[in-house]
């Protein structure tokens, strides 16, 4: 049994301690916006925020999560997609297949929280998630657009 603070709600889950946070979010909390891509922390499709830090949830065991850790998934950003990053993503028409985009949006959101006006080099360093469709050029444009929106 573990207690999670997930998108601002308390959730008690009954899973083995070695269960990755990813599968707990998907199968116990039923939130499937966080995706399984590689299971080894390589692709970033499972990215969530824990206490505001970007984390790859496939590689964090539930036993290492404290009840006070604030976990935010893609569903916890804004159900109406009203954050600057989500709005920029829509304006630039970023997603293709879309499977990696939850993770990309979580990564971009975490980046902008730390660096409100990121340079291209900042984006290169922070946006390391894999997109097999190759939406990178639009991701870069959307991160810049979101930064401008937040500033305005």
């Amino acid at each position: 049994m573990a207690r999670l603070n997930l998108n601002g709600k308390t959730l008690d889950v009954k899973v083995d301690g070695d269960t990755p946070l990813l599968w707990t979010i998907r199968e116990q909390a039923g939130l499937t916006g966080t995706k399984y891509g590689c299971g080894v922390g390589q692709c970033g499709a499972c990215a969530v925020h824990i206490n505001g830090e970007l984390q790859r949830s496939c590689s964090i065991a539930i036993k290492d999560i404290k009840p006070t850790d604030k976990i935010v998934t893609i569903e916890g950003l804004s159900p109406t997609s009203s954050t600057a990053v989500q709005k920029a993503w829509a304006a630039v028409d970023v997603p293709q297949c879309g499977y990696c985009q939850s993770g990309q949006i979580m990564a971009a959101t975490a980046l902008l929280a730390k660096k409100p006006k990121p340079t291209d080099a900042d984006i290169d360093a922070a946006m390391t998630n894999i997109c097999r469709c190759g939406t990178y050029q639009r991701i870069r444009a959307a991160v810049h657009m979101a930064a401008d929106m937040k500033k305005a």
Partner: protein
Amino acid sequence: MTKIAQTKVSRRTVVGTSLAAGGMAIGVGAGGITTALAQKVLADAATGAEVSAWVVIAPDDTVTIRVARSEMGQGTLTGLCQLVAEELECDWKKVKAEYPTPGQNLARNRVWGDMSTGGSRGIRGSQDYVRQGGAAARQMLLQAAANRWKVPVEELTVRDSVVSHTKSNRQTTYGKLVADASKLPVPDLKTIKLKDPKDWKLIGKAGVKRLDTAGKLNGSQVYAIDVKLPGMLTATIMDAPVFGNKLKSYDEAKVKAMPGIKGVYKVGDTAVAVVADTFWQAKKGLDALNPTWDESANNKVSSESIAEILTAGLASTEGVFVGNKGGDADAGIAGAAKKITAIYGSPFWNHATMEPMNCTAKWTADKCEVWVATQNGDASLAACAEAAGLKPAQCEVYKYHLGGGFGRRGQQDYTTKAVLLAKQLPGVPVKTIWTREEDMRQGKFRPVSQCKLEAGLDAQGNITGFKMRIAGPSILASVAPSRMGPGGSDPIAFQGLIAEGPEGHLGYDIPNRTIDYAMRNLHVPVSFWRGVNANQNAVYVECFIDELAKEAGQDPLAFRRKMLAKSPKHLAILNAVADKIGWEKSPPPTGVSRGIAQFMCYGSYIAAAAEVSVSDRGKLKVHRLVMGTDPGYAVNPGQIEAQVQGSVAYGLGASFYQKITIKDGRVVEENFDTYESMRLEDFPKIETVLQASGGFWGGVGEPTICVATPAVLNAIFAATGKPVRTLPLRDLKLRA
């Protein structure tokens, strides 16, 4: 916790089955299609909301357009809807899309035609009949208005779903006409006159956004891997790592005692699956299962042994098929002033879709259903029926947007295995999720190949003879033997290399030439990988052409141009990228070199020009990459640009980093740590030249993939003087 999950299921079901204002609306993005909804679609003609098979209109003027092809990111859903809406003259802001199911397609005499989605054919392969479907619906709606107002139909006009009769100053909307219109006979499609392209308002318009974006921004888009059904169990599976070897043993007793495990099941002769309450329990079970397989001769196969077979194929006369022959290549080379020979090679590549293979299946003695991401709904239905031991009419396939396809989800092995497993748990929905490792081990790879090129040049630097021998495994022999050509040939081997044809032909005018193929089939399965054989065929031809241009002492652009006089469209797109990069007008910055390439495939003409630098230590940087395409008609310029960019990430990324190694008969690279993907920091800014010359329908999703790599390789050759003949670049020293 189960409670929350179940609440989720019922909420989704309610959302999914609620009928929007009397019309039938299954949002493709709203979570797929349930059984009840599938029946609803079939019943829909009777409710009066379906106008033609392609168009359903609700009283509130919402237009639902049926899309038979699969959306895997390539934008076909939006493009096909644009084609229908263009003829329908409906309000684009109120357009939604939905997938009819393969079962409905079967039941309705294949009214939606071909559901397969590959070969960049989604739009070009159905543009005529989907536009006719939209036009037929428009005609019926207008006739309904004419009947109601008792005026000649010719006096009516329509725009954005509003029908007007100017003479009597009357107006109404499609939503108010749909009940009457649906009772009218569907016009004979052959009598329908489609719009002249010059009158298009929506097709080719800039700034038309995708229809499927909203759910991809907040986690609400449901993919097949996200499917939840009441009572569902989750499985994971492991098939023979050495393809085809028989399953020998596994520690069933130990695994069955583990938490959450519902059972261990053989799947066919070669695979074993663990079924549990959750994926993680199933995976832990599989990790503890210790399966073993019988050995076979394939256990001795390695990348090295495969290379030996292919190298022998380069000089063999057995199992050789000719694809393009003219004049006498041998005599042309024999009498040449200069003779040049080069051997190129390409590795296996895996598709590595972001969403690993998965499929949910529910089997009973008289019905089988699958919930799946597929590039070919018809093939999924056939695979389901065969594995279920039922008739196709007893089966149904619910299609979900794909988390990537790239050709992988055209093969149905993952559907078959899911059904074979579910059949052992009658009445229980079982979702089989492959681990990334299984997805990588059980790939259907881009074929490995080698290519020997020989040419002669005369004193003026003209090609006197050209020989090209490709050796490698055949895609059709591996996955579609029924489609093989005369004498067991594989025409796809010659993609872009044949003398003539609208799908793709070699543009160069080389009178003395022989292009042939030594088919060398292996135990490693090969299949269609975005761009297919055009990927390596373009590298072989276009990089060798640069080697010849250098030997001839000629500029690579000029050398190509003189051989393209009879291929004006090849030449035009080549010139377009050359102009854009400034090939003739402005020299590249100091330390930067240029490369260029052109090809034709999937009915489109493509070219690329690159600027790169290679540091003294051999580090490559791509500074500019201009990508040109002439697909004839351009339906959605924004999505064409996105596909061009994506093709570079996929194709050039593979050329940078990827190879699948075979050792002891099995795949070595099992995850993204060893099978690296291009990431944002390596992605060069792409300048897209869309030169849609009209008059034909070419593909978009794949063609440009094949020119990015040779343009970059030729730029490296220009920088270093050393031709690049093998991939991936990661394994090479670019400077000696």
